[in-house]
């Protein structure tokens, strides 16, 4: 520098006085891998499914056949199975999950909360294939004997409760409920905790009981967050593959009853993809995956935005 100044070279004033933060740039590029991976996944699935997308058009979504011999593919039974099992799972898991979240968000009872919290974390940690084998050999036969058979015998004239079978939509919904419970509980607990303490304290100071405070103050304040948690759970349930494949019975039909065997989008792919030959058959299977991933994408984004808006409002 000094030498240049002595030589009379003009000193240039840079427009950017601080050096560019290369570290920031490098970590940014690395961090971008996650969203880029997501976009690439969707793009690749589109590309692989293209043959089927152009061949069947929108008819793919409403077709009810799945015939690799005549190359006639429709996704409706798979969509029906996926949606029904997931909604059933939500209906079963929601009350339990919110109750557990209330208990976990409660002050005091440290030991109980520690125990319940650990238990629910472990529930989340167990691999889905372990739930699958348990549901196949223990839960399925048990519900068949003690729930499905008695109910369908009693209501044999009600179509959607008839025809009990050990592998069914119902068993799949039940195991899914267990599997989404940790997600529902953890997210609900966080949004319930984010409800400002003052609101709760005011309610208690006015003489409200625990239940009145919970039902009329905490739950309404956390409502959209719990709704978000529910949809997040729905997203998990829609995409769950292995445990469902093991117990749903794998029958490509719109089942007449919730106790009948059915199929889900993910299960069809899991069972058939390695054996699919030709051009159209694998493409149709990938299109099932595409439908699945697009639905879960929308569901997840809506859920995450809801959860975040609740958390953000609580922070104010």
């Amino acid at each position, binding site marked *: 520098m000094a030498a240049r100044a002595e030589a009379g070279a003009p000193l240039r004033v840079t427009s950017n006085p601080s050096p560019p933060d290369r570290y920031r740039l490098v970590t940014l590029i690395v961090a971008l891998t996650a*969203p880029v991976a*997501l976009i690439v996944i969707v793009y690749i699935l589109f*590309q692989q499914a293209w043959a089927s997308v152009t061949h069947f058009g929108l008819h793919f979504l409403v077709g009810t056949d799945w015939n690799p011999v005549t190359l006639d593919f429709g996704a409706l039974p798979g969509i029906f199975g996926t949606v029904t099992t997931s909604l059933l799972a939500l209906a079963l898991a929601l009350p339990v999950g919110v109750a557990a979240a209330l208990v976990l968000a409660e002050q005091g009872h440290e030991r109980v909360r520690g125990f319940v919290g650990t*238990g629910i974390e472990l529930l989340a940690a*167990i691999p889905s294939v372990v739930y699958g084998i348990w549901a196949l050999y223990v839960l399925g036969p048990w519900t068949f004997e003690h729930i499905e058979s008695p109910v369908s015998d009693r209501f044999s004239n009600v179509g959607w409760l008839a025809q009990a079978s050990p592998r069914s939509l119902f068993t799949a919904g039940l195991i899914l409920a267990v599997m989404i419970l940790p997600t529902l509980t953890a997210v609900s607990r966080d949004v319930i905790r984010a409800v400002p303490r003052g609101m709760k304290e005011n309610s208690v100071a006015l003489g409200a*009981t625990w239940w009145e405070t*919970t039902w009329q103050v905490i739950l309404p304040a956390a409502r959209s967050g719990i709704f978000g948690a529910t949809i997040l759970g729905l997203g998990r349930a829609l995409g769950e593959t292995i445990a469902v494949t093991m117990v749903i019975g794998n029958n490509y039909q719109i089942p007449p009853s919730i106790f009948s065997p059915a199929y889900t989008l993910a299960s069809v792919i899991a069972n058939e993809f*390695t054996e699919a030959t030709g051009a159209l058959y694998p493409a149709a299977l990938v299109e099932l995956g595409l439908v699945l991933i697009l639905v879960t994408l929308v569901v997840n984004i809506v859920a995450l935005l809801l959860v975040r808006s609740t958390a953000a409002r609580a922070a104010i």
Partner: protein
Amino acid sequence: MTRNLRRRFTDRLAFSGAYALTGVALIPLALVLFYTASRGLPAISHTEFFTNVERPVGVPGAGVAHAIVGTLILVGIASVAAIPIGVLGGIYLAEYGTNRIADGIRLGCDVLIGTPSIAIGLFAYALLVAPFHHFSGLSGSAALAVLMLPIVMRTTESAVSLIPGGLRESGLALGLARWRVSLQLILPAAAPGVVTGALLSVARASGETAPLLFTGFGNPFLRFDPTQPMAALPLIVYHFALLPYPSLQEQAWGAALVLVILVLIINLVSRYVLRRQIRLAGQL
């Protein structure tokens, strides 16, 4: 008076109801652990289970050594790929994460965490199996790495965010470069939290079946070459559980028990590490 009695009664009823439902939440955990332990123990009580590979039905002495090795290799390669990327990305989110781009990255991570793992399997198949015309351990590792990446990123972010700003400022005040402060000061301080996240992602990847179905595929032999089809514990559980042979079903339960033990150990270790982190953060 009666109104207050009714209020109190409703309150107690709802309160007990909430605790009862919470108890219901833990029943499946107890049942799954009990059945996996009781049905898996007969299989894992033979030492051959850990030293031998698959045998045809009826031949005694079958084991899952190949699947244990396969899971270790698959998850090992995935970890080597996903953990450094995840950690560095998480550092960006924690240190510079107050802009729109960072919010987008967070959303991308969270959506990727919720993406069906079977779709990630299809993606790895299209990218790494179809062009080479055979299944491979590497493609399985790639699928698992995509699963692990967002988990590592988000947990690293929260671990680094927990470090008090004073540490960063004192480093910068001493004239250290930003990367030096971040990698040599902040990251070591946040290490236990980062390790916890990495461990949890390893646990998740070890138990995943769906992404391996058409990538790692499975292999009845003991193989160490990741360019070839590779066995994995979850695949053993899945395939054997659905077969009508009691001896194979017993092995499926055994493999399930090994998986559960693995996952439980990882969770307990990460809990211990995290508790240390919280104690350390208190001292900073």
